[in-house]
């Protein structure tokens, strides 16, 4: 089993003819994801041909992709100026899981788009995220498939490459994953730690969760308190940014310590107080997970 994506996923790629969209569509197809449609306004009626030769029909609108190909999930690779609009288009067309890869969407655009998605009862992952992968089943986004392997661990993270680091180490140690989820590094995101932990908690195959946070905001603190109350499976945590100075944005738009709030110390303390084992180094994640699984 897995969360958010599985073998019922029928993916439409928004921005399929762009540089990133076309590259990753090939990657996703190669991984076995059912990419049923692409959308690029003005290119409806054409086909996208993947590196492996697969052909994907292109539509002008997501609405058409849903009507013609039964798409139920979308991946968004359109430029930042149009990305919030693309998210709302997906939600309006009845897509129930929307993965926004695009980085650099204006925050105020996202406050509206995230609300719109909620109003439509859909789920948004991201933006500015690497997407999700359910090893062996489906991948939506940009997480490299070869570093993952099926197994009992759920991974959720605000970062991209740091997640790869952790997942690759798990895989190398023979510990597989149900689903790896990158929730994104922006201050306004669709799916947060709690949403993801809840989904992992409801997944019968997930036996432990790795939660990788970073400085900025209070999402990790709230998730830790939530997990203590509601989650039956163990969580291993890691927080990046112990050496980050206050008031400076560390790459991610959301990775900023405001005043005295959102520090790594604060988050690590919240983890510890709520029974989450904290890895001090990325390499420790693997060892703590191994302990949790009793392996």
């Amino acid at each position, binding site marked *: 089993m897995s969360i958010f994506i599985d073998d019922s996923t029928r993916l439409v790629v928004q921005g399929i003819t762009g540089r990133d969209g076309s590259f990753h569509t090939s990657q996703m197809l190669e991984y076995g994801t059912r990419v049923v449609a692409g959308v690029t306004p003005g290119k409806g009626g054409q086909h996208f041909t993947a590196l492996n030769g697969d052909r994907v029909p292109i539509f002008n609108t997501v609405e058409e992709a849903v009507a013609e190909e039964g798409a139920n999930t979308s991946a968004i690779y359109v430029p930042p100026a149009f990305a919030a609009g693309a998210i709302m288009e997906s939600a309006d067309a009845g897509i129930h899981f929307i993965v926004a890869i695009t980085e650099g969407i204006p925050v105020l655009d996202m406050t509206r788009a995230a609300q719109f998605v909620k109003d439509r009862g859909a789920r948004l992952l991201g933006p500015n995220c690497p997407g999700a992968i359910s090893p062996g089943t489906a991948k939506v986004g940009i997480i490299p498939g070869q570093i993952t392997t099926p197994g009992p661990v759920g991974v959720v993270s605000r970062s991209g490459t740091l997640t790869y680091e952790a997942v690759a180490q798990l895989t190398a140690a023979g510990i597989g994953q149900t689903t790896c989820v990158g929730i994104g590094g922006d201050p306004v995101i669709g799916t947060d730690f709690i949403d993801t932990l809840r989904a992992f908690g409801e997944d019968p195959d997930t036996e432990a969760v790795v939660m990788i946070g970073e400085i900025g905001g209070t999402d990790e603190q*709230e998730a830790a308190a939530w997990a203590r109350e509601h989650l039956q499976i163990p969580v291993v945590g890691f927080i990046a940014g112990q050496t980050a100075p206050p008031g400076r944005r560390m790459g991610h*738009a959301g990775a900023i310590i405001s005043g005295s709030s959102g520090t790594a110390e604060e988050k690590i303390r919240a983890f510890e107080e709520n029974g989450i084992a904290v890895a001090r180094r990325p390499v420790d994640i693997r060892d703590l997970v191994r302990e949790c699984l009793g392996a």
Partner: protein
Amino acid sequence: MDIHEYQAKELFRAAGIPVPPGRVATSPDEARQIAQELGGKVVVKAQVHSGGRGKAGGVKLASSPDEAATHAGAILGMSIRGLEVKRVLVTVAEDIASEAYVGILVDRTTQRPMFMVSAEGGVDIEEVAATNPDAIRKLRVDPRYGLLPHQAYGLANFLYTDPAQVKQATRIMAQLYEAFIGNSCSLAEINPLIVTPTGEVKAIDAKVSIDESALFRLPEVEALRDLDAEPAAETLAREAGLSFVKLDGNVGCCVNGAGLAMATMDLVKTYGGEPANFLDIGGSSNPDKVVAALEIITADPNVKAILFNIFGGITRCDDVATGIVEASRRIRIDTPIVIRLTGTNEAEALEILAEAGFSAFTGMDEVVQKAVDLAAQA
């Protein structure tokens, strides 16, 4: 992106918020002339991207144009929290009957623009929040409706009892919200919002930060960027499309991905070193970015060792290797470089590096330890 008080006040004025007249000066003479034009008492205020200007002696009252020039002379060139003052705002000094605080930022938890207002103005709002939270009223604005009339009124009604002042403040709330949205702000703050002895409500200080991601559609706001106010290295980094933050350590870091970059810095510290910077080369595979990154890192004299930590995904390891080799040809690098590359096109990358005489590793802990050791030995 932070902008200066005088720029923020221009945005406020454009939105209709009452702001005392004033202009920016870069010399004592200019300050004297502005004070002359304004007449009466003026305030001379250092324009730097930092709080605590008053405590640092960067804000002074002048009763005459000459005094304004003298103060400007003292303030210009002074250093406030490490930032050199290159401009002063000369503005009419207002008599103050009361001071309030009004600010808007994006509340991450509710994902909405949030007002914070307090009748305790002119002080640090975080301190008020900690010591007297009831003195602050918060209002989260539903982005589907914007600030509604009764909400603006409710905020003003929390600050004032006099109906005329409530009315003025209601209008200012709406105007500040318009300025916040119209300029894609991440923060817009009036501290203090004063009432004059004759009952006029005015903004006498202004602080605005703009969402960097929205600047592409706000060229006139982007033009407010003050390159003097940021380290040259950060300007270079931004222009090269890199995320860079200067720190004080001796291990220069070059990483792909913000989370991994922070984790790398932390690991440097864990192994006894100090990171010299945060640097994320981003997700794209462009050798030029790597060259720019190395130029920026090597320009810092504190850097005694350079650490590359690349986990290839979208970023292709061979592109990064090509960039390193390219940089080593274009610029002279005396500092030792330690490289860790793994993931997409790892084999090709190792080959490129080997050909150019670099060696590389695949484990994160070992390279960090090595870089820390090299920096310590230097």
